[in-house]
């Protein structure tokens, strides 16, 4: 996990990655049942738990329900996820009895690439049979994208990440837009937000095309357009993200410092 995006500029006393994590954490209402991907989503979900949403129930695909890690897990099955969990169940149970059963309010996903409808590629860049880049693959994402009541995606805003066309649809967002999800019979309502290091994109109510509705402090529409691989739609009056509060920043940095110390401890 990159802790400070390589190209992220600090705006004032925080980095753009910190802003992204804080913005994403605010999407999680207290008490929400959240199926959490590793990396940025896990960071944001645990910041939410440390700040305004202590009652969130975090589910990781390794089988932990109600995980309460005091440091960020490096893998999806770290011991710290099981330690104070409400329960630890098998992988079939987490996917069948929890995710597929419709018990998950929010699926919190990262991605290698998304398109304008919030479809996700984590499989290949280029041709499937002779790929330019072979990515890790689907993991739990396709069914999280299907069954979670809503999906939030986190991804740094880059032209190679927000692309015109995906080489491969690994997980469905809003498909070809419009009523595509209903037509496919998918139970959840799909991506409701794409949080980047520049702002927040939300699907247009009609077309479901991701639209820049909020900019983080210091970011500009121009910047966002340049960092998007498609012709980005922008809301008429994009809002502005509240900068991180002192408390948010302090708790995020403490979380990361504890994580770093624990990682070094393990490796010392």
């Amino acid at each position, binding site marked *: *996990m990159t802790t400070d995006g390589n190209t992220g500029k600090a705006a004032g006393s925080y980095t753009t990655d910190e802003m992204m994590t804080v913005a994403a954490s605010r999407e999680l209402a207290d008490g929400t049942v959240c199926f959490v991907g*590793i990396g940025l989503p896990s960071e944001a979900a645990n910041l939410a738990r440390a700040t305004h949403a202590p009652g969130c129930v975090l589910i990781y*695909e*390794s*089988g*932990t329900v109600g995980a309460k890690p005091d440091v960020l897990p*490096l*893998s*999806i*099955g*770290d*011991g710290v*996820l*099981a330690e104070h969990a409400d*329960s*630890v*169940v*098998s*992988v*079939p149970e987490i*996917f*069948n009895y929890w*995710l*597929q059963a419709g018990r998950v309010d929010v699926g919190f996903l990262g991605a290698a690439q998304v398109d304008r409808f919030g479809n996700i590629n984590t*499989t290949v860049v280029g041709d*499937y049979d*002779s*790929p*330019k*880049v*072979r990515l*890790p*693959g*689907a*993991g*739990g*994402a*396709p*069914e999280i994208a*299907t*069954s979670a009541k809503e999906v939030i995606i986190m991804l740094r805003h880059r032209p190679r990440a927000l692309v015109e066309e995906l080489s*491969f*649809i*690994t*997980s*469905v967002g809003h*498909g070809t837009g419009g009523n*595509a*999800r209903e037509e*496919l*019979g*998918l*139970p959840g309502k799909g991506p409701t937000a794409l949080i980047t290091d520049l702002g927040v994109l939300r699907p247009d109510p009609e077309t479901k095309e991701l639209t820049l509705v909020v900019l983080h402090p210091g970011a500009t529409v121009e910047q966002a357009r340049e960092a998007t691989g498609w012709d980005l739609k922008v809301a008429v009056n994009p809002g502005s993200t509240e900068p991180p509060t002192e408390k948010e920043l302090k708790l995020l940095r403490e979380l990361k410092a504890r994580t770093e110390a624990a*990682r070094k401890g*393990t*490796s*010392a």
Partner: protein
Amino acid sequence: MAHVADLREATAELVRDGDSVALEGFTHLIPTAAAHEIIRQGRKDLTLIRMTPDLIYDQMIGMGCARKLVFSWGGNPGVGSLHRFRDAVENDWPAPLEIEEHSHAGMANRYVAGASNLPFAVLRGYVGTDLPKVTSTIAPIKCPFTGEELMAVPALNPDVSIIHAQQADGRGNVAIWGISGIQKEAVLSARRAIVTVEEVVDELVPHPFQVVLPAVAIDAISVEPKGAHPSYADGYYDRDNSFYEAWDPIGRDREEFGAWMEEHVLGTENFGEYLESVRAKGMVTK
């Protein structure tokens, strides 16, 4: 019925060229010692099955043990790519690697079907994704009561499944606690099963979220202390995160990879010697 056996003998007896082999472990309890023994014995033409192939499958693929990989997520967790896996898929090195790719939910249910002696499992999945276009083992199925259409995936029944667990008791019952992932289903779906354990104890005592696999479901148990390194064994040792980081540059380079495997795996007799060998290079941090 489980018997305690040397891992070399158990592997020689139970893992054969051309087998479909599942070495499972979901970040926790990854059976590294067993993977190395398969590499040492030079098994070929294996169909490797695993939800989350990581370093050990990277090593087996890079050493030419595998013909095919059945999986749902292949990476170096928390670090990045599996370079040997990528080299095989992207450049057919050291040999072409056929892949059969699913989602976690699909793989998990395939093991459940296998453990249940059913030919297929049903799930809500894959719809709208490109996976059915590239993976032939996904097919629609209709509910005979509601008419609703769902997806079916065929059962997984590995010739051999291998897992690492914390403990076995004197009768050969095996205890896993903490995150137990898909291990129970991996063992119960297999025709033959090997379990490596940290230790054999007189009697199992309850641990949080413990799963006990009865002796009658297991063919051989081998004692391999620290046999899941660099992953962790809850109650025994922590995850060696720096080893995962150290693997990245080794796995990235064909020659460095070959030399490393030669020195530490092929050049040692067993996992204990291997651990000493990598420890001497400062690669084992605990």
